[in-house]
């Protein structure tokens, strides 16, 4: 499942690596509602940086402000030392962007679209070669609306790469994809990082954040509530395992807390999420508790703690619930 090689601990960018994106105090309001509340973080060269959070957290808006699509109400963004607000065109020459839903000119073929975008930059890669890199060369003369979801995402990626950018922004790149296409995209992203590119992606897929990203910023309600490698974030839970189950009627939270090894418990309706430092004793005790008290135990899941649990711990809400 999770290959140790891909875990965040092996980031190629050490702490001394150059900061390539520097975000300070970003604020954005929409109709008197603050959607991005004083967001700051920095991204290092050749890092794969993830922004994890539910829908509506402000991830896309934050990204749009870094990409120069939207103007922040306050705060600054520096990309490769350049101020995005003041030197927008210069910054946009070295970045590549894949938006959440990419629709393009329905009248142009894939190849024509790439050629058009290529003409917007002083330097660009060969459109045909890019199409074959993303396995779309046989669709060169097709139109965007004739593509499947996965193919459209690959086209959007090719478009993002047309100017051979050093910084790549991917907004929910695998959201609508099947697992196989998702893995294909992860492979592409890893290869791009090997070329020295920096990648920033937003996601609400916890696997993507854990497996692909070097560091993860957890975002909720317009703010960054945690930023670290996923391994560090998870270890802060102090749990070796998570036991997720339903216990009927007579069970109480305080009872469950007293089971051996349990570090903390979350409880809503009949659902219990139990964090434990030693899974086996807790599990055994839980089962005997249930049978002794005449409590019905259902929907039992035992898993290693994930960013899902980190999010739950930080916000009291589930990441997937949206």
């Amino acid at each position: 499942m999770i290959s140790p090689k891909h875990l965040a601990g092996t980031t190629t960018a050490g702490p001394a690596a150059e900061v390539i994106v520097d975000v300070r105090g970003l604020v954005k309001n929409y109709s008197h509602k603050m959607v991005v509340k004083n967001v700051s973080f920095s991204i290092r060269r050749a890092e794969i940086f993830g922004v994890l959070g539910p829908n509506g957290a402000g991830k896309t808006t934050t990204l749009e402000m870094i990409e120069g699509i939207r103007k922040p109400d306050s705060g600054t963004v520096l990309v490769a030392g350049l101020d995005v607000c003041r030197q927008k065109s210069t910054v946009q020459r070295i970045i590549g962007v894949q938006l959440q839903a990419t629709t393009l000119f329905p009248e142009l073929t894939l190849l024509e679209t790439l050629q058009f975008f290529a003409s917007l930059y002083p330097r660009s890669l060969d459109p045909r070669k890019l199409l074959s890199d993303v396995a779309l060369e046989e669709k060169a003369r097709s139109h965007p609306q004739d593509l499947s979801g996965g193919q459209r995402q690959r086209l959007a990626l090719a478009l993002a790469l047309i100017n051979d950018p050093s910084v790549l922004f991917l907004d929910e790149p695998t959201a609508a994809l099947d697992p196989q296409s998702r893995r294909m995209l992860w492979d592409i992203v890893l290869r791009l990082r090997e070329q020295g590119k920096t990648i920033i992606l937003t996601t609400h897929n916890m696997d993507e954040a854990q497996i692909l990203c070097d560091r993860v910023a957890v975002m909720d309600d317009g703010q960054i509530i945690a930023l670290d490698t996923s391994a560090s974030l998870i270890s802060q839970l102090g749990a070796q395992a998570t036991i997720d189950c339903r216990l009927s009627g007579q069970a109480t939270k305080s009872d469950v807390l007293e089971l051996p090894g349990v570090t903390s418990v979350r409880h809503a309706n009949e659902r219990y999420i139990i964090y434990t430092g030693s899974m086996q004793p807790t599990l055994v005790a839980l089962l005997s508790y249930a049978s002794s008290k005449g409590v019905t135990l259902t929907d039992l899941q035992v898993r290693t703690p994930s960013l899902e649990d980190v999010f739950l711990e930080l916000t009291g809400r589930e990441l997937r619930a949206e």
Partner: protein
Amino acid sequence: MMSKMIVLVRTNFSILRRQRGLLIASLGLAIVSMLVFGFLFGGNTTNKTRLGVVDQDATTVSTQIVHQLQQASSLQIFTGRSDEEQQALKNGQRDAVIIMPAGFSQQLVKGGAHLHVYYDQNNPLTGASAQLTVKTIVESINSKLAHQPGPVALEQQAVAAKDLRPIDFITPGMLGMLLMWANLAIGIQLITWREMGITKRLAATPLKPISMMSAQVVARLALSLLQCALLLGLAIWMFHVQIYGNLGLLTLVVSIGSLTMLAIGLVIASFVKKSAAADSIRLLVNLPMMFLGGSYFDVSNAPSFLQPIIHVMPLYYLNDALRQVIYYGSGWSTIQTDLLVMLAWIVASMLVVWRTFRWL
């Protein structure tokens, strides 16, 4: 810089060229209308305009005018008293009636004579042809007076050579309508692009919105000129419509007309967000303007409560300028007002666009 603009214009032109819906709506509609009216009301050149002439002046000059009119081969002249002729007009036996009142020839010499004209309002197309006929007659009288204070002789060629058919009236109107449909559509285009997220994607590139929009404008201008050439070509080939005016001036009128409609289209794009609403708005603007602007029939006799609306509509002035140049062979001075009104529309629209247009 220039080569980038060329690429932008070429791409925009390719996009437009492949939008079949646009071409069908603008060019197709114009062609079909023209064919329907052309065949329905006849491209028949032998239809004479039936003109009733009432001579209340009874002087040498007025008699000469009547005589000259009777010589014109495209006119069928009836003489009689005012009440008789007007009754004949009401009965559909005349296309128009002109009355030279007492004292007419005296005032002609002094300058400032008035000719009373009655038209058949119920038959908008033949009524329009008759109006043109009378206008031509009047112009001939006026131009002759400018040069010789002697007997008035009508320009025979001027009256006979012009085939005063409904198709001649309709063709410039169809050109105007075509320019309106094809160019207001720029508004729909931008709204759709915005809704689809295309402008957002472009906003992440070094491309400046103004460059893309300029390229759109240039591409649409080129397409408009092409479509007009096609429509005129068809009119000339099928119905022997003649362009009496200067082709260069016609090109100028078409260009300014296109730019006017493009500017208004951009105003629509500044205020409307959803493409569904945009379609409704477009119809709301196009349909009244098409009819009230005089594309299909003459509107100078429209009820007075409509006149203020008509005189505000840019299409009204475009159609007039087109008719003047194509049919009358008019020059710069005659169409000055029309062009100025269109320019005013362009300036006003661009001011609004400058303040309110949003790319995203």
